[in-house]
């Protein structure tokens, strides 16, 4: 797949997420389209590309909106790599695969957030995982991922990912 197009998708998504998406918050929760895209693309990319995709996606968020560098890069890097490693075992025609995977990834994302913040001495709250807020994030991401996955699957069928 074209490196140029993939970079463009990363940047456009980042801009979209920090501007327009802020208006689409439900119950104070903004869906994480970056995470959804990492999960959906990783299913079709090889491990190296998936890890790189995750890394660059996280780096942008780190640079512009984090107090410190590396947290989101690390999370998305691992996420991309792991999802891609399992991708050959997964039946990709089933749309609900993205629903399940994104839900699980969101939990992983939040757990990593809590762990990293805790390890480096930032204020954090281990009870956050049991809050309603977390549940909303998981549901919102998982539902939105179905729409995005349908589109990515169509790209895949048009041989978009052949390189």
């Amino acid at each position, binding site marked *: 797949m074209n490196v140029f197009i993939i970079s463009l998708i990363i*940047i456009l998504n*980042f*801009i*979209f*997420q*920090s*501007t*327009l*998406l*802020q*208006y689409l*918050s439900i119950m*104070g*929760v*903004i869906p*994480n*389209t*970056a995470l959804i895209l990492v999960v959906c693309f990783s299913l079709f990319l090889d*491990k*190296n590309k998936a*890890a790189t995709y995750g*890394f660059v996606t996280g780096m*942008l*968020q780190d*640079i*512009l*909106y*984090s*107090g*410190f*560098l*590396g*947290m*989101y*890069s*690390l999370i998305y*890097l*691992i996420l991309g*790599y792991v999802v891609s490693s399992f991708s050959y075992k997964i039946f990709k025609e089933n749309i609900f695969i993205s629903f399940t995977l994104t839900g699980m990834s969101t939990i992983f994302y939040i757990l990593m*957030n809590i762990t*990293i913040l805790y390890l*480096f*001495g*930032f*204020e*954090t*709250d281990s009870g*956050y995982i049991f*809050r309603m*807020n977390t549940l909303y*994030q998981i549901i919102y991401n998982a539902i939105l991922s179905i729409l995005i996955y349908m589109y990515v699957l169509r790209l895949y069928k048009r041989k978009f990912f052949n390189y």
Partner: protein
Amino acid sequence: MKKNTKNRSLITVVIVAIILIGTIGYTAEQREEITMLENWVGGILTPIQSVISSGTSFVGNLANPIVNYSKVVRESERLNEEVSDLRDQLIKARLTRDELEELRSLKYALNYVEEEAKYNTKAVKIVGKSPSNWFDTFTIDAGKNHGLSVDNIVISSNGLVGTIYEVGDTWAKVVSIIDSSSAISFQILRNNDFKGVVSGSIDHELSGYLFDPSAEVIVGDKLITSELGKHPKGILIGEVTEVGYTADRLLRTIEVEPSVNFRRLNTVLVIIPNN
């Protein structure tokens, strides 16, 4: 051969992950300067974000009165009441002002040294907000080239918004007061003997405590910044919505509703100290 490449990619990922953990540790403390790369990435992305967020807020401002018609009507009724209330206060304030002017002229007569203005302000636009549900940071479209520096205070017409955390040449990162890393020392407007600290949280709510356990604080009290912290004195923070005690009953705790609506913020003012 195949096994070899598989291992190699795993090793690369592990190495990058370790480097990233190192970077987190290295940048965990607030830095004076950001790297070239960060400056450059921000410099390219913020103008694009700026155009899109202006467009979005323009459309939003057009659509909002139509969608929220009944809300707007209620809002205007409330504002009308507030105007008549403020008119009353204005008359009282005018009387006090006359008195103050008299006293000031007396001060000139006694040859007092006049204090110089300590601050400049600069109006900036918010270009994008953090996509994370955890942190509450945003970027603005001005940076070092416009005279901004780390730790400058950011306010809006309604009150305190946040503090500048990092500056690039043409952009800056602001941490808002409801972010979990923020802490502000405040005093109660009604009685400035009562001081304390409020901090943000992961849920983007402001809460804090008062130093004096016997302080009389009631729901509806307004909080302003005190001169104890790095903020200039007298900026409105918010209103007390709940009062309680800590478990050991040693401290008065409060919940605070910020006076600024962080969801609908487009333009803010940066306070730049003069020197």
